[in-house]
């Protein structure tokens, strides 16, 4: 991967270094906001991956929640405290569930895929609100994570979790950027355009979508794990349909043209929500809705369509 020939890699690297540096200067509230938006971006990346193949997942919260709960339960019930181990367990749990559900999901398209994904996430939500051992609707607290045996305290701990989120978001974005420029990545675009032709070229549409589904789940699970560590708490709302809807919202807001787009969109959403809530606490949802409306009317390809068009012209 040549940096000079790939502006995305260069921008990602610059953003990661910049965010790590700025994190030392930012006030706690702002750093936390950036951290959450980076973690959520991973779930949005999962939605984006599937959107590129023409599939809209209204249930990505399922894997976000599994990642969060698996990490949280490992800390809460099993006494695992290492952040990397917690995240790995969240990632593995998400991937294992996706490997099973993906066999079914890869058969469906369009509204059927959207509704089925929503159904699975709501089933998990329903199970969690009834699971008293896991705190029912209140969820449970996740013990503070350690980092390879080092237990940071206070501000150091907050910066460490922030730095971990930045680093992982960078690594995942880099990996997905590589995936998108592979034949498998392009096959997603081709499937969205014409499934019949893909099959007649000798490729398996279902296998391609299955791989995409599992990758999207893993990435979203990692996002959920990072949120669990950052917030120190998980609850069933992680799987609720509004959480998944927000990921779709951000994917539409940002566009699907580049792995950078979800990070921009997610950050923008967090800012809009924070400031809308601060200045219009009773009507902030209207502001979000209005933003969405304007976007669909004037930028149907999302924010990235503007950047992409400019890059193409230059």
């Amino acid at each position: 991967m040549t940096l000079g020939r790939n502006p995305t890699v260069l921008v990602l690297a610059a953003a990661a270094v910049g965010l790590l540096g700025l994190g030392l200067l930012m006030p706690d509230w702002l750093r936390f906001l950036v951290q959450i938006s980076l973690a959520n971006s991973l779930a949005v990346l999962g939605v984006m991956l599937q959107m590129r193949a023409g599939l809209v997942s209204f249930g990505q919260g399922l894997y976000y929640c599994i990642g969060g709960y698996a990490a949280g339960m490992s800390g809460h019930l099993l006494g695992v405290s290492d952040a990397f181990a917690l995240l790995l367990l969240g990632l593995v749990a998400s991937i294992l569930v996706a490997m099973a559900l993906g066999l079914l999901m890869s058969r469906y398209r369009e509204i059927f895929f959207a509704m089925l994904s929503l159904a699975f996430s709501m089933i998990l939500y329903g199970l969690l609100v009834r699971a008293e051992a896991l705190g029912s609707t209140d969820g449970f607290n996740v013990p503070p994570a350690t980092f390879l045996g080092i237990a940071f305290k206070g501000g150091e701990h907050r910066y460490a979790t922030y730095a971990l989120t930045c680093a992982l978001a960078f690594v995942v974005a880099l990996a997905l950027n590589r995936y998108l420029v592979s034949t498998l990545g392009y096959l997603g675009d081709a499937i969205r355009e014409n499934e019949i032709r893909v099959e007649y070229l000798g490729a398996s549409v279902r296998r391609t979508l299955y791989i995409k589904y599992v990758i999207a789940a893993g990435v979203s699970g990692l996002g959920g794990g990072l949120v669990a560590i950052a917030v120190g708490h998980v609850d069933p709302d992680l799987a609720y349909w509004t959480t998944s809807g927000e990921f779709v919202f951000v994917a539409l807001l940002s566009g699907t043209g580049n792995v950078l787009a979800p990070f921009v969109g997610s950050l923008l959403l967090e800012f809009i929500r924070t400031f809308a809530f601060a200045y219009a606490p009773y009507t902030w949802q209207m502001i979000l809705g209005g933003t969405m409306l304007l976007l669909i009317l004037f930028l149907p390809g999302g924010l990235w369509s503007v950047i992409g068009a400019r890059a193409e012209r230059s």
Partner: protein
Amino acid sequence: MVPALEAKGLHKTFGAVIGAADIHVAVAEGEVLGIIGANGAGKTTFVNMVTGHLKPSRGTIHFLGQDITDLPSRAITQLGICRSFQIPQLFGNLTVLDNLLVAIGVMEASARALWQRFRRPEPLALARETLQRYGLTSYAESKASLLPQGVRKLLDIAMATVRAPRIVLLDEPTSGISTDEKFAIMDTLMTALKAADTTVLFVEHDMEIVERYARRVLAFYDGRVIADGPTAEALASAEVRQYVIGGEVDRRAVTARA
């Protein structure tokens, strides 16, 4: 010698409608076979059964001696039978070059190949060579959805043949193409396929094209094969003249008289 393609007793029904009735065909390697028939005669049903899109109700299809009757379309493609479509099946939002790169990218069945970079030197070289062979170089960076019909047809065929198939089935390669362009396109196409020693089966309504390019003709009527033989012989058959060519013969006769 084992035929490249052999259909035995193919039968296909769609409810009460018979799409194919007891079709027996053997095609030798390197043959160029024209498939003719009126609309609804069973030509595309035959092509769809050979390429795995439809499963025959009865009968078998063999490719170089291997039974492919129950294989899915992608497995048949991987074996070496490719097809183009009456309505070109392209990736409209991708460029012409990217359309070909997708076709080249999936040629290797290994999972490792799928993870490789889409724009690598070797596939790019093959794509550019194919573009040149089909006269598409000037369209390389054009979006497929914006191409003229003739170019769309050529791209569709180029995608079907890029993996150098043993057999290619072309469904009406000149439909929707102007009279001026059709021979030029067929010349380009047949030269490219002949160079690769590909067995060609093409469905065509245009008898001028059939006469000029097919060495053998398979004529369908009502799901049945009513003629199978050398082009001149098949086109001269009474049944073909009555059920397939009809006005076409009269028009040519008039032209000849003039």
